[in-house]
């Protein structure tokens, strides 16, 4: 069974389905780091963060998406991913992400709620840049961009 076991993956957004099909395995950006799901995974529900969803199809070809926030559910060999923003990795707009990053950096934030919101924007922008860099091999973020923390 393990040989030809496959996952049934569906990625759905409020505007429609982004991916529907069989997969060998899936790597998803959980809120605290990436996690991989292979067939025979235990049933699970996880909150997702900003990052890249990598689906490796049964024929070995990959399909990558950028997604921000959402939830992943594994039940049996079915993987359902619910997310509001799903963009194919190669369509991620790096320039826009850079602009957003600079903008978020420049916005003063006071109090826990605002700081959280800004951290979220920063994470989102950084993840976009990272994903775009990986998909094209260009525009890879520099260590500075990843490490730079907002001024408190």
């Amino acid at each position: 069974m393990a040989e030809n076991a496959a996952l049934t993956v569906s990625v759905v957004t409020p505007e429609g389905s982004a991916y529907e099909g069989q997969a060998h395995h899936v790597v998803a950006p959980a809120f605290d780091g990436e996690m991989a799901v292979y067939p025979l995974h235990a049933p699970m529900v996880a909150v997702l963060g900003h990052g890249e969803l990598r689906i490796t199809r049964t024929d070995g070809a990959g399909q990558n998406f950028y997604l921000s926030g959402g939830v992943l559910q594994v039940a049996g060999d079915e993987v359902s991913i619910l997310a509001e923003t799903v963009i194919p990795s190669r369509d991620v707009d790096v320039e826009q992400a850079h602009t957003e990053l600079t903008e978020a950096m420049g916005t003063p934030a006071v109090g826990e709620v605002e700081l959280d919101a800004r951290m979220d924007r920063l994470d989102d922008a950084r993840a976009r840049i990272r994903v775009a860099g990986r998909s094209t091999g260009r525009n890879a973020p520099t260590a500075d961009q990843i490490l730079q923390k907002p001024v408190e």
Partner: protein
Amino acid sequence: MAKPRAILKRTQSVKNIAKITKTMQMIATAKFKRAFDRAVAARPYTDKLTRLIGKLADAAGSEFEHPLLDKREPKKVVLLAISSNRGLCGGFNANATKAALQAHAALLERGLDVEVIACGKRVARMLKYKRVIADVEHTHIEDKPTFAEVDVIGSELLERYANGEVDEVHVAYTKFETAARQAAVVEQVLPLEPPQADEDAASGVQQNFIFHPSAEQILADLLPRSVRLHVFQAFLDSAVSEQTARMVAMKSATDNAVEMIRDLTMLYNRSRQTQITTELSEIIGGAAALE
């Protein structure tokens, strides 16, 4: 009897109107299909989210608490009225406005401070006519609402609810039930009704899910999403209903025009014949007088 020439002119203008309404009907049909597909495309997401929330509610237990579920003493409420930017779609806008007005009156009766957000030029104008001035007007959302566009409104409402600025949110829109049935409804978006535990999860097929981080936290993440989805769904439904309403309105307008053309043509033929008869009898009369 009217002059044949005047009738002919009228027939021509009715024909032109029929051409326009026929075209509008066809456009509405095409747009309806697209809007319908979009509304259907959102369904898997809605279903999965609802089922997941049910499952999580079951796991989190009945003591689960979340700010979005709190029923606080309402002071300020928001009424979101959704209709379209364009007219010529039968009773669509009028019905949506009527539902919004009724909700508005009911909320005022409860002694609440009501803020009206109007989405669509038509509903804003009609509310103004009834002396209900919308505090905010959104007219940029066209017949293809995207999640990002609508989410701006939904997120803002959520934020204001979280700040305690707003205590209740209601939405008045046209719900798309079937192609033949749409109804103007008013629904409460916030605070949420406590999620019902999923029946399937409780009975038999209970699996031991790993919750990462925990059922409560996942539920807390999902509840705002379901609120935003509710608002988005309202916009999608409204868009589909608008096109259906326009299709029906333009169909009957075309039918009426065709019938009118038939009547006018008959009237024209008759009056032409009468005129010829009159002229003939005049000539014959004239000739007879000469003899």
